[in-house]
């Protein structure tokens, strides 16, 4: 173990390189910029390439071309930059390419974008939302593995706090189950033999005239159904005899978990649930966690987005109330007054009223 004090941006770039990422393209934008800087500094010495793309549109295109050759590749931005990339992200998903995408978001208001997508068509991305730098190191490596396993983009939902918080961590290369050979990857070698590869999002098959998007997209839907069934991840604690359940993801979950632990130490019957995958959302686990509670409180730093998924999970078994909200600094980077233990404790305590959680 050689722990080093590292900001999340540096740790995630190192984790990506440890996972075999050899291509990155991005366009500077706060708070994503430092992730790009770290890839630019570290990738060339690891035998890779980092291109400072002239736009997010071009960054995602370059990463598309890189991962199509079988290389592990990633791109990213803030939610604003990802808005520009959505058309390509839809197509990359339907071409079944294993791209890893970072959203170093300005707060948590890109939940809809991450889980519903802003692009066209029926498509899904796996979304991992790390709670801290240490988990981000794991998630980044897991993201490359899952992307290859499913041949599907995986999104890492980070934010300013994750990218700029320095923690003592150790980036260790993780082992995962063996993956199938990338026999689909385009390296140019199959030309001239009558059986070339054609990576496309519309069901084009070489040698067959016309396209068959109907059966192609239905097969993709079946894959996404299998992903949904297999990849739900969550964390929970203090559920026993809980009267109030606090649900939060990513950086906000770190605050929520701290407050729940504090209150539990004081004998308050409050529980904690964190979706680790935002898609697929761990609905069944959340329903079970909420089964005995009188109230569910959703802490998210936005106008109320994940709360939709919480309600769809709890299905009326308990009232679901928002306790977060929009909270920004003057620059709009999502570092607002809500990121404060006392503030959040106050909101959880307000939610306790009438829940019977206090003994």
């Amino acid at each position, binding site marked *: 173990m050689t722990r080093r004090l590292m900001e999340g941006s540096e740790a995630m770039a190192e984790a990506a390189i440890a996972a075999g990422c*050899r*291509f990155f*393209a991005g366009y500077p934008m706060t708070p994503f910029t430092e992730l790009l800087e770290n890839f630019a500094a570290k990738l060339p010495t690891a035998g890779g*390439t980092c*291109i400072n*793309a*002239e*736009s997010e*549109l*071009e*960054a*995602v*295109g*370059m*990463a*598309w*071309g*890189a*991962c*199509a*050759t*079988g*290389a592990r*590749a990633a791109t990213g931005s803030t939610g604003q930059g990802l808005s520009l990339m959505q*058309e*390509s992200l839809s*197509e990359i998903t339907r*071409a079944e390419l294993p791209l890893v995408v970072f959203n170093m978001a300005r707060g948590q208001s890109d939940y809809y974008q991450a889980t519903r997508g802003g692009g066209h068509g029926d498509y899904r991305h796996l979304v991992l939302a790390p709670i801290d730098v240490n988990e981000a190191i794991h998630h980044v490596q897991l993201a490359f593995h899952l992307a290859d396993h499913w041949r599907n983009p995986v999104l890492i939902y980070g934010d300013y706090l994750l990218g700029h918080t320095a923690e003592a961590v150790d980036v260790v290369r993780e082992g995962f189950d063996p993956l199938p050979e990338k026999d689909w990857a*385009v*390296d*140019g*070698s*199959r*030309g*001239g*033999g*009558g059986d*070339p*590869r*054609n*990576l*496309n*999002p*519309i069901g*084009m*098959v*070489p*040698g*067959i*005239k*016309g*396209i068959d998007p109907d059966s192609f997209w239905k097969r993709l839907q079946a894959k996404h159904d299998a992903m949904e069934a297999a990849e739900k991840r969550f964390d929970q604690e203090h559920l026993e005899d809980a009267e109030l359940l606090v649900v939060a993801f990513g950086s906000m979950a770190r605050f929520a978990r701290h407050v729940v632990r504090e209150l539990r130490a004081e004998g308050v019957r409050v529980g904690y649930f964190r979706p680790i995958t935002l898609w697929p959302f761990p609905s069944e686990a959340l329903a079970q966690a909420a089964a005995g509670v009188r109230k569910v409180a959703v802490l998210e730093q936005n106008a109320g987005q994940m709360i939709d998924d919480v309600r769809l999970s709890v299905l009326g078994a308990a009232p679901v109330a928002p306790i977060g909200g929009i909270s920004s600094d003057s620059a709009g980077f999502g570092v607002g007054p809500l990121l404060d233990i006392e503030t959040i404790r106050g909101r959880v305590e307000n939610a306790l009223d009438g829940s019977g959680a206090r003994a």
Partner: protein
Amino acid sequence: MSDIIRTDRPPEAAARKTGEFMPTLQLSTDHDLCPGCGEPLALRTVLESIVDLGMSQQCVGVIGIGCYTALTSIMDVDLIQALHGRAPSVATGSKRMRPETLIFTLQGDGDMANEGLQEVIHTAARGESVTCILLNNGVFGETGGHMTATTVIGQRTKNSLDGRDAAYHGHPIDMIGLLAPLGGTAYAARGSVHDAAGVAKTRRMVRRAFEAQLRGDGFSIVEILTMCPTGWFIPTEEGPDYLDTVMGEIHVTGEWKRDGQLLQQAADPPEAD
């Protein structure tokens, strides 16, 4: 000229199929493009150049969106289907990961000059060792003949019914004139497939562009003017003449830049290669 088929005037008798010709890297001659379309001819110059250079099994095509997209099902080349306008960036990522591979894009004028203009400019300026092939017919053929950024003044399209009017619709972009001067551009040429001599010259241009890429000289582009009688709303047999006189007037054919040097005047590619 006597041993080649004249395409500069309508044939005196109806065409008669005497045999079938298929380039090595084509899986079939059966495609859905219109009679008189120049794109299959342009594709042939690309496929034959790949074979000429012995790169059939080390070649990746990145395809844009347009009529030519339908040709991908008959291409015996490893392909990536990109989005409208985005092929140069996709080609960039592929080339950086597979530098030994011959990488080309296939894009129309709507794709490259309208939707993706900044992509091709940046790719050229960066000097990426990829070759962009622009099939320019001056219209959005697939949607049925609409004005693009290369539509010439006076040209009738479905959204410039009285002809493109500079005062109202603006001016066409000369893509080769735009891209040739950029520092990263090693080779830039514009060919035309309106007659047999044009096809032969175009093939030489594509080959020279590929050679520039394989030498690592930088970015290369060949624009190929193609007939689109359907999108031009003219009889099929008038396509080649219309291309030569109306489009060719503005989009001047020849090599514009070779070996990284801008030419004073667009010139034919040398015969001996």
